[in-house]
């Protein structure tokens, strides 16, 4: 396995191509693993405490070795950087055809540093690379940018696929995202602000080169088997039909939504509590990437007959909302009309901004208003105008979004880094402590689901390397009460699936983090695995596909160690910038305020939080008091060199 990395220094305009040797794949698998290593090495020679919006930050894009091979497991590219909104490790996955097209050029990884003196986009056309003036694109949203680049670059050697930012990224809004082909968003952690700070408007790729698969016969056999397994799984047909919106009814049943800033956990109001709208109104299906046997994506087009509110959006078309788009709108903000929920998904995508951070920030403020903790004049001070901040008022919500994207007013400036820093800043401004109304874990915005009854989820939120996060740990053993999975991974024990005890919850976090790190490094979508986590195990089943693609044949145990190595490097990054056990925590609301509806009333994180966190550190081999890695824990996963760095800087236990 050999791959190429394109290094771009935007300050000087110099670009160089490097070979990523086989040994790097052997150590870091690919995708997010290799991205992490590129960033780690960068910050051995640059100040890791640098301003994430400064030229010393690095922006890495990478795509893993299974992507685009015909494996059928979806394609996810990954961006990696120091997060400007959370000021820690940051990364984010995204689908679309950009990552797959990058593999058809000469490169699979791009590392961008410095700052361009003027707005540019990076154009990669097979093995030719150039920085092109982007002044005509500056000020455009992601849809306009993508459309213009497509027209400008023509169709040879292929259509252009793009990664771009909107005005939010240009304005270096901390929670600005990066959007692939104007459709699929790398939402988390503020990669858009990093691109904006570098005056990098977009990356456009065109290619018609091929992919090299080390063992094509084996790859084809694996792919056939996978296709058959997927086709035999009836649940896949339901998933194709609804995507993650299948979760709406389940969450409504057990009480797992995030309603009005998580004051409750059930949606309110008619049709929004089911997935009927989606079935009725989604217009046509498509696959988000070119290599997926599931195809859960679909589009809607609003014709105005769906509801009264829909009349505002006649002709609007975009991707069907996913669960978290719905969770943030129908849940966090209590928007009760499906067309408005869909519109929320579209504007947050076009403006390239993370709708989880955004909804948590807006709903935080709405709750302050609901509780009369702030007055109309306080609101006017924030927005330079009257603003009702009524729950579910889409016009108000849209103005909040624009306030942040365009940095229009005080609200935009205070909350542009998400709810945690926003709540701190606003508390300081008003001389009052509003933190009990902010929802976050480890400084990162909540993902808009109820998590208090689920100790593994709470642990995931506290320890995720990029702040509160549902895509690093994924508490699926417990949330779906999968005793079978618990037995497989924990010597026949079932406690990991039992919501009532803390046992094996920290262990589950560590285990699933390692598995997810593998999937992210292969460059595949997580949903295939989630539909059958016992069948499509990352370290075993997917491991065979990885071997076919790369020629790197690993035992499942070795692959799990690889996953642990990748997670440990993310942890080491955060240790270097001073993060310790006290940072591995969640907000007051989750910790102390009991749920009062749904199937698990009376749940608070505090009940099991510390034993679960202790167990997590134990399973990782980290020091329980400081939360830091020990030399042994790092050497056990082959990271003695990382231990040396941490020791030199006083960040080793």
């Amino acid at each position, binding site marked *: 396995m050999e791959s190429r990395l394109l290094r771009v220094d935007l300050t000087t305009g110099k670009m160089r191509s490097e070979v990523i040797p086989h040994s790097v794949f052997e150590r870091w698998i690919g995708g997010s693993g290799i991205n992490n290593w590129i960033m780690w090495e960068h910050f051995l020679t640059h100040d890791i405490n640098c301003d994430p919006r400064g030229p010393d930050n690095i922006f890495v894009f990478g795509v893993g070795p299974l992507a685009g091979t015909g494996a059928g497991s979806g394609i996810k590219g990954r961006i990696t950087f120091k997060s400007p909104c959370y000021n820690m490790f940051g990364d984010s996955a995204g689908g679309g055809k950009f990552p797959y097209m990058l593999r058809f050029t000469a490169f699979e990884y791009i590392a961008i540093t410095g700052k361009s003196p003027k707005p540019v986009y990076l154009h990669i056309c097979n093995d030719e690379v150039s920085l092109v003036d982007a002044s005509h694109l500056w000020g455009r949203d992601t849809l306009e940018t993508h459309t213009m680049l497509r027209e400008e670059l023509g169709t040879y050697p292929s259509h252009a696929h793009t990664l771009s930012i909107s005005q939010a990224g240009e304005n270096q809004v901390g929670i600005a995202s990066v959007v692939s082909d104007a459709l699929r968003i790398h939402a988390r952690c503020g990669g858009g602000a990093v691109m904006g700070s570098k005056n990098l408007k977009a990356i456009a790729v065109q290619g018609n080169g091929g992919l090299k698969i080390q063992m094509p016969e084996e790859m084809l056999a694996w792919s056939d088997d996978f296709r058959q397994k997927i086709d035999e799984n*009836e*649940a896949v047909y339901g998933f194709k039909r609804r995507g993650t919106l299948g979760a709406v009814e389940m969450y409504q049943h057990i009480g797992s939504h995030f309603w009005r800033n998580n004051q409750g956990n059930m949606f309110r109001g008619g049709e929004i509590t089911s997935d009927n709208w989606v079935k009725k109104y989604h217009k046509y299906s498509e696959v988000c990437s070119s290599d997926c046997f599931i195809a859960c994506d679909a589009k809607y087009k609003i014709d105005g007959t769906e509801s009264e509110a829909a009349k505002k959006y006649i002709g609007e078309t975009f991707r069907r909302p996913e669960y978290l788009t719905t969770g943030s709108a129908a849940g966090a903000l209590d928007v009760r009309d499906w067309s408005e929920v869909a519109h929320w998904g579209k504007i947050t995508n076009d403006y390239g901004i993370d709708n989880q951070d955004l909804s948590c920030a807006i709903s935080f403020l709405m709750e302050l208003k609901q509780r009369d903790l702030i007055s109309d004049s306080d609101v006017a001070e924030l927005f330079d105008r009257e603003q009702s901040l009524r729950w579910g008022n889409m016009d108000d919500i849209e103005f909040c979004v624009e306030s942040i994207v365009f940095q229009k007013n005080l609200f935009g400036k205070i909350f542009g880094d998400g709810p945690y820093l926003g709540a701190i800043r606003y508390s300081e401004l008003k001389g009052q402590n509003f933190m009990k109304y902010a929802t976050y874990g480890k400084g990162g915005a909540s993902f808009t689901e109820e998590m208090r009854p689920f100790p593994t989820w709470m642990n995931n939120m506290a320890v995720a390397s990029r702040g509160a996060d549902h895509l690093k740990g994924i508490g699926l053993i417990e949330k779906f009460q999968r005793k079978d999975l618990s037995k497989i991974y924990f010597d026949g024990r079932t406690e990991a699936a039992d919501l009532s005890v803390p046992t094996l919850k920290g262990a589950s976090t560590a285990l699933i983090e390692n598995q997810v790190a593998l999937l992210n490094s292969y460059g595949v979508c*997580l949903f295939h695995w989630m539909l059958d986590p016992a069948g499509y195990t990352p370290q075993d089943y997917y491991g065979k596909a990885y071997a076919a693609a790369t020629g790197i044949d690993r035992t499942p145990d070795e692959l799990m160690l690889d996953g642990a190595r990748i997670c440990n490097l993310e942890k080491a990054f955060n240790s270097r910038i001073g993060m310790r056990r006290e940072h591995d925590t969640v907000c007051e609301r989750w910790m102390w305020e009991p749920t009062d509806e749904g199937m698990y009333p009376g749940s608070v994180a505090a009940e099991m939080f510390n034993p679960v966190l202790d167990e997590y550190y134990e399973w990782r081999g980290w020091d329980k008091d400081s939360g830091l890695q020990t030399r042994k824990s790092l050497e056990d996963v082959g990271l003695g060199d990382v231990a040396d760095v941490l020791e030199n800087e006083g960040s080793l236990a």
Partner: protein
Amino acid sequence: MITVHANFHSHFKELASTGEASFQIETPTVEALAESICEAYGPKMEAMLIDPDTHELNERGTMFVDAKGMRISMGDQLSDGDTITFLVGIAGG
């Protein structure tokens, strides 16, 4: 003979063409309920409900819970008037 109520959501609702149904079963077990449901709604429902390899309830992308939100298994006992809810198990997005 006991009566057990079933609530079907999402894909289950589509396969059953209804959101709710009641079943009278001789043996008060989840297994008997599952058999009745498969009989009533055919092979696609069976594929969704039963794991063909283990003959246990299918765990892949599904979630079957009792009134307290606890996942049920094939061997569990049921009582007259119980309600079991059939959900799809997916998260994220």
